């Protein structure tokens, strides 16, 4: 139990997937200019990350390892994630239109979100069991949501701020992210945490 809580804290704050691990930066800067896109993107990431973690974990432990096919890991994982996202998109469109209108346009973007694949790899590299992997995935997703919400609200304010022309847009967002990262650095060593 203790261990799971530490995994949660570590993935959520100390080793925040975006600010500390640099995974999933494309959607982080791509859709964070407004809050109304940032939050649903974060939600979709949590959702897909959790599902893909369950699937890739079982695939790895019960198919790739027993058959000695670990060298197909990258190929298999990315295919699984891509098909999962496609499937979810179709499924939501047909069955749950409400969810589709909330997450739909973000789903295709998620295929090439390295956070999803990265978390799948990290689970294996860290030798996590199923439960730990799940906790790790969910808390990484929550960390993503936290970071993207924070930067979304900062960027909304930045729009009206007097910024040098050459720094407008992405560069100033990077600087904002750097300052956020500095604040998050303060969490490291928190409860002796590190991963």
């Amino acid at each position, binding site marked *: 139990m203790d261990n799971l809580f530490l995994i949660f804290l570590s993935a959520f704050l100390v080793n925040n997937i975006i600010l500390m691990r640099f995974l999933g*930066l494309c959607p982080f800067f791509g859709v964070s200019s407004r809050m109304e896109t940032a939050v649903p993107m974060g939600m979709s990431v949590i959702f897909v990350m959790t599902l893909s973690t369950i699937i890739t974990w079982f695939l790895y432990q019960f198919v790739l390892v027993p058959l000695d096919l670990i060298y197909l890991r990258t190929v298999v994982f990315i295919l699984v994630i891509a098909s999962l996202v496609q499937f979810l998109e179709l499924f939501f469109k047909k069955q749950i239109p409400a969810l589709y209108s909330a997450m739909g346009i973000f789903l295709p973007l998620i295929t090439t979100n390295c956070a999803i694949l990265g978390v799948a790899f990290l689970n294996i590299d860290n030798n996590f069991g199923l439960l730990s992997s799940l906790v790790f995935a969910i808390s990484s997703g929550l960390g993503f949501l936290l970071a993207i919400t924070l930067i979304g609200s900062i960027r909304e304010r930045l729009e009206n701020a007097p910024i040098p022309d050459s720094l407008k847009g992405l560069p100033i967002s*990077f600087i904002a992210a*750097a300052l956020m990262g500095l604040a998050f650095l303060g969490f490291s060593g928190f409860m002796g945490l590190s991963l």
Partner: protein
Amino acid sequence: MSRTFIDGIIKNNLILVLAIGLCPTLAVTTSAYNGLGMGLAATFVLIFSNLIISAFRNIIPDNLRIPIFIVIIATFVTVVDYTLKAYVPFLSVQLGVFIPLIVVNCGILGRAEGFAYDHSPGYALMDGLGIGLGFTIILFVMGTIREILGQGIWLKIPGMFSGFKVFGEAFTNSSVILMILPPGGFLTIALLMGIFNLFRRK
């Protein structure tokens, strides 16, 4: 054809212009050597996936192209992954999960889809070279800035070369450690992009 090459470096620069492939750019550039290694690994994948996709562009069915691209790219990524593990183990450990993650570097899939799929292999090769070089240069420059400011040395190759001492001993002992921590990555890329924008505007 040389136009394609130059465009790949500057006009279509993955990081500065398209802001794609940011994750490895920020994560591994704590030293110039790591940046160079990452850049070359991505370039290798880019060149070969571009070549193969362009060579077989008439056979690949339109509606199945994306999964096929993904498999091709993932295959070359795995080749790079294992080759690095075998022959440059230290670099492989340093780059860690970011080597297999080249597969989701949107830049590579983007070039496959946007360029290689409707150009002949010659052009696709030049595009791969140009884009790869543009990517590598930025990674190398970022690594250089961060390594020099953060550690006071340049081009340290672990186990082989201890790096040029750029500043004196006093600096090396109390360097700007922030630059090799994650926020330093964001600051460096903000700086590079700002400078690039300044010149592009003129």
